[in-house]
């Protein structure tokens, strides 16, 4: 045991010595070089040589941050904005390319159609675009089609959009900004950025109603019976219309308390709903739902009321605001807290036990009564 420990200690010592020797030799050679240098150029050599360790330290402290700073990534990128713009039937916007790079950017702008594949927008091929035989200039006009943007400056383009409703419904319009300058010796690279133009102008036909609408359907999924205090909601909004939807919404969970009462005079009085919770979903819906796509919003809600108050049927209401029109989807669920089930089972067991013990008691009484009589 002891010999093992000694060995370890010895090994450490040797390693430490080696390190020290290497460091010492390195410092020695640095100091030799330093000394010879000082000898030649400065008469105050003795004074400076005595300051040597301090000077080396200063060089190290100053040198390292400079090294790290020089390797830090600079913001040398191209920034295109707006990268999407929601317009009514017509309008214009300024498209800007900010050149934060250290290189000159030669740009070529063109109008292109995008299509949706697997929930992603993707530029259609030039073959497809040619086959459509569309004069895209009719929809979008750009004031300059080629431009050179100097480093650290901005290039601005006026994009005028007209007759968006004439764009084939399966496609989305876009302005392609192509970064040029190619060298065709080996594998050359080019970069494109796209600014998408969305038409979010919903008309009344698109939003005629959730259930009957040809365009929009929303479904609220949740379990029919909820045993815990956790309610998981899944709302799916399908946009089969040909317009993009901008939405916001919230979820209400409420109990209906005698929603209608008849007064003595025969008048029907509507009573308010008791809203238990109103959960905002705005964050999840603050984006476009483009044509032909759906969006699922998952919400988890904790019902913090005491379990005995949760018992009963509850109506969960999903209110969706699509382009400023409200739609409501409701579903009815039964809250059956597990605590109440446990209490019910225990009560039944207790009742059976009491009943059983009563029966046993009666039997015993009868027996003893008979014996006494004897």
């Amino acid at each position, binding site marked *: 045991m002891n010999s093992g420990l000694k060995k370890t200690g010895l090994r450490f010592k040797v390693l430490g010595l080696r390190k020290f020797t290497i460091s010492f030799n390195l410092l020695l050679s640095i100091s030799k070089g330093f000394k010879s240098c000082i000898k030649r150029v400065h008469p105050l050599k003795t004074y400076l040589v005595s300051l040597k360790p301090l000077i080396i330290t200063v060089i190290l402290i100053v040198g390292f941050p400079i090294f790290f700073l020089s390797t830090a990534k600079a913001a040398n*990128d191209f920034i295109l*904005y707006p990268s999407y713009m929601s317009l009514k039937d017509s309008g214009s916007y300024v498209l800007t390319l900010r050149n934060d790079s250290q*290189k*000159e950017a030669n740009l070529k702008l063109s109008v292109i159609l995008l299509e949706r594949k697997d929930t992603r927008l*993707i530029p259609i091929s*030039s073959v497809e675009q040619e086959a459509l035989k569309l004069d895209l200039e009719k929809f979008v006009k750009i004031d300059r089609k080629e431009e050179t943007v100097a480093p650290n400056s901005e290039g601005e383009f006026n994009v005028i959009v007209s007759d968006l409703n004439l764009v084939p419904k399966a496609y989305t319009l876009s302005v392609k900004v192509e970064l040029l300058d190619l060298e065709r010796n080996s*594998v*050359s690279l080019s970069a494109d950025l796209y600014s998408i133009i*969305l038409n979010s102008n919903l008309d009344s036909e698109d939003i005629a109603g959730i259930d009957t609408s040809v365009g929009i359907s929303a479904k609220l999924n949740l379990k029919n019976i909820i045993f815990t205090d956790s309610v998981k909601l899944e709302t799916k909004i399908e946009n089969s219309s040909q317009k993009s939807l901008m939405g916001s919404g919230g979820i209400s969970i409420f109990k209906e308390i005698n929603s209608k009462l008849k007064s003595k005079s025969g008048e029907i009085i509507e009573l308010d709903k008791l809203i238990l919770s*109103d959960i905002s979903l705005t964050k999840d819906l603050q984006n476009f739902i483009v044509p032909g796509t759906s969006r699922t919003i998952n919400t988890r809600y904790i019902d913090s009321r005491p379990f005995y108050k949760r018992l009963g049927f509850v109506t969960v209401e999903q209110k969706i605001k699509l382009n400023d029109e409200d739609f409501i989807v409701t579903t009815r669920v039964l809250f059956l807290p597990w605590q109440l089930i446990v209490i019910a089972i225990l009560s039944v067991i207790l009742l059976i036990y009491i009943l059983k013990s009563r029966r046993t008691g009666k039997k015993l009484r009868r027996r003893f009564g008979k014996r006494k009589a004897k």
Partner: protein
Amino acid sequence: MKLSKLGFTIVISVIVSVFLSTPVFAQAQFDSTNYSLLDVEIGGVGGVSESTNYGLINSIDPTANSRLESTNYALGSGFPSSFQAHVPLIICIETNTDSGTTDCNNFPNANGAKGECGDPGCYDRAKIEIDHQDNPVDTVYLVRLEDEIGNFYYLQSDMSVSQTYDINDYLTLCEIEGVDTRTGSTCENGGDPNYNADLFSYNIFGLKPGETYEVSVRALSGDFTETQFSPEVQVTTEYPSLVFDLDIANSVGINTETSVPYSVNLGTITSSTATSVNRIWVDLGTNIVDGVNLYAKDSNSGLVSGPNLIPSQSEDLDVDSGGDGGYGLKLETISEDSLGPVLTTGSNYSTGSSNQVGNLTTSNSLVVSTSDSGSNLGQVSGGRVSLMVKAKSTTAKPAGIYSDLITFSLLANL
């Protein structure tokens, strides 16, 4: 005798009670060397007194009402100023700040609004924090935003903005910011029922991109206590943006910036797989909530030299099942500074073995993307992707200079 004693007691009691009920005013010396003020009377000061269970609103000398007002401030005394809530202040309203410029206290990523929305900042949302100015915990606040053409918008209970408001849109500090560290707020920390960390990143939605708003806030702490709006603070939203750049550098060149023309030299292509020394580095970033897609396509579906072609195929080049050589791209590294992450889901170039490549065609193929699905965020800052170019030839291929043009496209994932 007894009756006279009783009468005496009553008289003394009346005198004592009258003495006690007479208001006592603090008397001070208002004389100077040359002047003295007569009939000096100092009225009591009204206000709100609170204990844990009870609150008292008192107002003495209700007739006094001298107000001093300027555009931004007002000094009021007496009724009703004496029990008005204190005018709150705006600590911060931000869309494009970073760690060096933010005034907000609760940004989760500690890099201002850019840390939450991605570079260059938020385009449809903002973060506001309010200085309660010692108003009680249950004080409610109304946030007002004025756009460039003078329309007023009010923060709603669902955190969107609307041109109308009602009493439900007066919200507590906890409801606006998701946290109120004061005792009794029920949202002091993560264990409290009203604590809402979602509001730490941003809490005003539905703003117009590229718009400047003047923002102010008023407080209400019980009936008739509503204050005027606080001094306005200006905020400008950004535009939805794409950040993009290409660079050519070796495998450790993550921080290297290179200029056009971008060209990758494959060297001599033989019957064993050649990998370019230089990688294609792509910088990407966005503030778009739905994220972005990076696509790649080429001009020739392979490397061409006159009529000769080394086809681009998705295959393991070491195997080269077609025996006709091959060429393609392979993702090497993926990283981001914050948000995102950059995803390889569905990517054609996220391949298995070391020389397995994804093919290039004249149609766009997905390289990487960002998405708001699940716990992912569409926004990303400082995204960086590197791709290797790999090629293999066969002895049957005629010698020549083989070349191709690869185009990378970045577009919003709406």
